[in-house]
Structures are given as C-alpha cells and as structure tokens.
C-alpha cells in the first residue's frame, strides 16, 4: 500500500539514507533539503555522523530547523563555532566525507554548470554561481547533488560552462537517483510511479532505463511522521515553491 507523500519527503529520506556511519557531512547555504536530511539521519536513524554546516555549527541541536541554512540556529547546541575559512580549509585538506551541493545544470558526464547558459561573456542566462563548488567537488570524498526539479533544461547533454566537477556520487531529483559510473550519469533507481518513458522525456541526454530498473524505496508511514515531527514548518518544501 502506498502512502501519500510529497517528492520532497522522498528526497529528504533518500538523502538521509545515502549517509554512512562515521562520515563527516557538510551542507551549505540555501540547502533546505540537505539540512532536513542530515538532521533526519541523526535524529531518526540515530546515524553516527558528524554534521558540519556553513552557519558554523558542528553537530548542532536546534529546537526547530531554521528557514535559512546559514542562520545561527544551526549553531545552537554546537560546542564550537566553525567559520567559513575553517570549513574550506577542512574540505581542502580532505577532511569532508560527504558534501551536499546544489546545481544549475548537469550533463551526461556529470559536469555541473551553475554559472552561465550561452557564452560566459554574453550569457543567455546568468546563473547564480557555484559558490565554493569548484574547490569542494574535487576535494570532498563523496558529493551528493540535488535539485528540486527535473527537466531537459536542467539535465542537458553538454553544459556550456563547467563550474565544477569531481567526486559526484549521486544526484537526487524528484524523479530518480543517478549515480556516476565510468564518468557518466546512470540511473541508480527510479522513484515510485515514475515511468521509464517519462524519465527519458524529462532528461536531455540518453538514459538507460527499463522495467528492470530498481525502484526507490517508498517512505514508510513511520518515516513520514518522524519527518513531519522534525520539520513541522515544511522547510523541506521551500525549494518546490517558485
């Protein structure tokens, strides 16, 4: 029996399950889904991970998750203040196991463009920029990318500008999870109710997907109620509002 849930619920739970015990996990600014996922992994699965966030917290314990993932509530309960230079130094020297990073576009070779569509000098669309992605992506041990939308304009054959590339492990979308294999994005699992044809129609590069492709595990009622308890304000839905 399937329970009703939002794609954000599934994505947050999938992102939480992709974390492993003992990992040092980072999320940055404008990262509501990763923030919810990391706190869900720590609280609900009691996963022994170390959270490092861009607000400056290490393993914080906020009463409520803030709307801004750079807000000081994410220092509450932290025994130290770890500022931005501390974080970039740590990831540079190889001390971050998992980094959650957002993206504008990605191509079949797992190259991310968050800079510009068209030429760099005269872009058709100026994207918001990659933040520290160009440093983080090659230096974090595993990078988990996410995007709250899945369309041929986002998943393109070839990006116009490579903002960053590197140790991409998974890409989590409202339709599927990709993994990087031999330098290419391949479908790791298809979310429940998404047909292979629909995924193909929404992806701008050829994807190998069939009736035999694994289906992402549905969230259980227990997981969904625990998620609601962790995030009663629905911060996990923010990225789905335009």
């Amino acid at each position: 029996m399937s329970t009703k849930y939002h794609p954000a619920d599934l994505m947050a739970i999938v992102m939480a399950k992709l974390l492993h015990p003992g990992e040092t996990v980072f999320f940055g600014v404008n990262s509501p889904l990763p923030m919810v996922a990391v706190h869900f992994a720590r609280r609900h699965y009691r996963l022994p991970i170390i959270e490092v966030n861009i607000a400056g917290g290490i393993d914080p314990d906020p009463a409520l998750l803030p709307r801004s993932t750079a807000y000081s509530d994410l220092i509450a309960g932290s025994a130290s203040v770890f500022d931005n230079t501390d974080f970039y130094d740590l990831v540079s020297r190889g001390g971050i196991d998992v980094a959650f990073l957002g993206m504008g576009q990605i191509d079949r070779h797992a190259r991310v463009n968050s800079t510009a569509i068209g030429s760099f000098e005269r872009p058709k669309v100026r994207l918001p920029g990659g933040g520290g992605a160009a440093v983080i992506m090659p230096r974090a041990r595993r990078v988990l990318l996410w995007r709250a939308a899945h369309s041929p304009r986002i998943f393109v054959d070839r990006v116009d500008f490579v903002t960053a590339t590197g140790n991409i492990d998974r890409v989590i979308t409202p339709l599927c999870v990709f993994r990087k294999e031999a330098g290419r994005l391949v479908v790791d699992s298809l979310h429940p109710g998404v047909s292979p044809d629909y995924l193909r129609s929404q992806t701008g590069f050829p994807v190998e997907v069939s009736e035999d492709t694994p289906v992402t595990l549905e969230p259980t009622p227990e997981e969904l109620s625990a998620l609601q308890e962790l995030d009663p304000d629905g911060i996990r839905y923010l990225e789905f509002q335009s």
Partner: protein
Amino acid sequence: MQGMRAASLGVPFMPVAGLDGSDIPNVSGFHRVRDPFSGQEVWVVPSVQPDWAILHVHQADPLGNARILGSPFWDRLMSRAAKRVIILAEEVIPTEKMARQPELTTVPHLFVEAVVHAPGGTWPTSCPPWRDFDEAGIRAYLSAIREPDGLARLLAEREAADHAGDSNGGPGGCTPWRGLDSPREYPSIKGGSAG
C-alpha cells in the same frame, strides 16, 4: 578566500586546492605552477586586497575592538585582508568590558578606522542570533529598487522610522532585537587620521 589570505599575509598569490576540471580558472586568469619542493602542479590565485572592509558586528568599543557573536563567516579574514576597516555595531560597549573577555574580540582595534553605532543596521537582512531577516522588508527593497528613486524613498522612510525612535520599525517592520545595554552617547566615530 585564498586571494584574501594572500592579502592578509602580504604575499602576491596563494595555492588553492581543487578547481580541477572547472572552467573558472580559465575565465578568471588563474595559473598552474609547479611546487618547487615536491614538483607537483597546483593552481594559484592572485592576492585580493579590498580597499575597504565594512563589517557589521554585535558589539564594539569606541576604539574599534569588535565582537562577532556566533560565526564570523568571512569577516575575520576580511578584517585582515582589507586596507581599511569600518565597523558598524549593534551596540557600543566600554573598552573595560571588552578587556574582561578579550577572547571574544574578533577584530582588534589596531586596523579599525571608524566605528559607527548602527543598531538595526543590517535591515532587512538578519543579525543572528539577535535579529532574524525581515522577509517583508526584503520584498519592499526588491520592489523599491525597480522604480526610479525607489531606494532613496525606502531609505528615507526607514530613517524617519529610526528618528521616531522606532528602531524596530521601518517598512515591513523588523523582528524585535535584544535591547541595548549601553547608552547611545558613546562617540560613534573614532578620532585620528583617515590617511
């Protein structure tokens, strides 16, 4: 970050990790150089020295010693990298109070040129943990800057609200911030040469 590090250290460039596979070095004019010690190649970025760093802090004394509560984000580095530093403070407190807990001072006065007492000065953005961002204020700003003289009008409204003693007010209103525990008569500008 490494560009400002170079400035803070007084050296012309700095190595930086990562960047492999990115187009950013090409469009930004970064270079790859050989480490003379190990022989390995590394990206380097040039020194970035801002003329000014204008830093909003929670507490400062009239000399320019400044406390940032919570994370300093990039502010500590910026204070060391810039040629000149201006501090904007929510509260101005006596130097004796700073000296009682010197480890809380993020920016020492020696490179600070001026202190401005500017309670609520981050409006409509936040000053965590004392004040959250003001969403209505951000929307007011975004619509004001699209009309001619809109920003001037918004700032005038804000100034009038400040002078009316309603320092929490302004268009859209601010989430209340923790009260001042210091009087307002501390000098807001440090004396001395501006160079």
